[in-house]
């Protein structure tokens, strides 16, 4: 060891804590002042809709298969011409995400073939019971925007699902 290491280094550490005292703390005043998250923050999930209000989810269960924590449960069902929830043949009749298991990794988002499942920036997911932390389909569905219509209803944007997935102007 050099003289500096023996005599000076034990003292130098005190200067670090001393000067840090007068620096601006990095604390965020979270519950009082909410800072925006990063734009691609992995928050609570959302089930999206087509512009006419039909659900994008086709009940394929790829999200449930992709989930490493086994947090997603999906049951698909057939659409009929009378009762239609999504443009294609099938829709997600039951859709549950268990937020006690979910690790918010986003693999379900990557697996979704119709962009039905995405993530929001909402992160305040604490609750006090197991039941309330298993989010049902109605908890996850995106709210109806103006111009949307509550399903079930017939397809408004075309005759078949291709008009939803690849509208005019996009090469099929």
């Amino acid at each position, binding site marked *: 060891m050099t003289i500096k*290491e023996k005599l000076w280094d034990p003292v130098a550490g*005190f200067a670090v804590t001393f000067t*840090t*005292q007068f620096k601006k*703390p990095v*604390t965020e005043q979270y519950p009082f002042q909410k800072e925006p998250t990063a734009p691609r923050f992995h928050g609570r999930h959302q089930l999206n809709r087509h512009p006419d209000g039909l659900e994008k989810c086709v009940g394929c269960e790829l999200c449930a298969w992709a989930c490493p924590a086994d947090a997603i449960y999906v049951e698909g069902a057939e659409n009929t011409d009378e009762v239609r929830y999504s443009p294609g043949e099938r829709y997600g009749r039951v859709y549950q995400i268990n937020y006690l298991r979910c690790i918010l990794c986003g693999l379900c988002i990557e697996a979704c073939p119709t962009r039905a499942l995405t993530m929001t920036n909402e992160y305040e997911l604490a609750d006090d019971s197991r039941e309330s932390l298993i989010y049902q389909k109605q908890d996850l569905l995106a709210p109806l925007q103006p111009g949307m219509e509550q399903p079930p209803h017939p397809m408004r944007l075309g005759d078949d699902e291709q008009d939803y997935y690849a509208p005019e102007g996009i090469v099929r």
Partner: protein
Amino acid sequence: MTAMHENLAAFGHDPWWVVVIKVVLIFAVCVLLTLFNIWWERRVVARMQHRIGPNVHGPFGLLQSLADGVKLALKEDLTPINADKVVFVIAPVLAVVPAFVTFSVIPFGPVVDFFGHHTPLQLTDLPVATLFVMAIASIGIYGIVLGGWASGSTYSLLGGLRSSAQMISYEVAMGLALVAVFLYSGSLSTSAIVAAQGNLWFGLVLMPSFLIYAISMVGETNRAPFDLPEAEGELVGGFHTEYSSLKFALFFLAEYVNMATVSAIATTLFLGGWHVPFWIDHVWAGANTGYWPVLWFFLKLFGFIWVFIWLRGSLPRLRYDQFMALGWKRLIPLALVWILVVAVVRVVALENSFDPHWVAVPAVLFTVLMLVVLLRGPKAPALPVFENQGAYPTPPMPAGGAVRGAAAPLAVPVRPSTVSAPARSIEEAS
């Protein structure tokens, strides 16, 4: 000796109501100091770690420790089935009472007009007040040792044993550090020691004693970096592992009152007690009269508390053998040699009638020597020699032994390779 008796003549004439008011005031000050110190420590340590600390309850978060105290009192009070019930209850009381008692001989100020009664701002004084302080501090150790023993738990027992060993060891160094003060002031009474520091603090002329005391008072109060008795990572909670609710709160209170107590003693014995710092009294004559000295006293006290906090924010915990080696092999011998130096200078000064303040010269030299001895640290132990170096699974030792200090910058050795990797075409890669 006459000076000492004159000094003590001010004590022992208080009517009963003045004594009662003083006792209640001291108790209140100790409890409030504890609440304040806990808050202050959390705030300052937070700033040292780039955080803010408690700032929600009350102005600047000042009521946080009060809220914590109420929460602690409302918790379930558990007594382990193996515990010695009587001692288990007595131990926290035994820890907290001596911490308060010490404050009875701490001078907060000079003789003042106390509700129309002339009395010193000090509960009482004894011809041997400093010895009394040392004796009372030793009783506080019983609380911790008995608490550890009576819990009927191995962790508590280990914590209590560590604590007793630690406090007894550091009390030796502490007592030896004080001897120089006694030699120099010619008295053991706290008010006389403060009076002897009217011109020059003992912390300056007896700097080695001051440093030894400052180090050993941290060991004495079980504070970081000497917080081995309650080393959370090693002993769960040390001697108070099995304690909960108000009994735990008493230990907590004792720790913080002890911090204030040793700081008050350090202020009294080394930093001039209630005297105004930096010769301000030469500019402002009223600075050392009336109730102003109480302010100077508490400013110095908080200075020490801040150093406690700074140490906690800066230093990691010592290993047990390092800690004991520091106390027994360094502090105690240094204190003994220093007492010898002070005694010689004192005798020579008295016989040849030169200013005893010249002891400051050997004090500075001794301080430099001491800092070198303390900062050099113990000699690194010889590294064991391993056979079959580099054989699986042991990686080879670096040339020149284990790396000490900062790691060398990472350099990847460039191996002269004879076969260059074949360049892959895009078609191959895809």
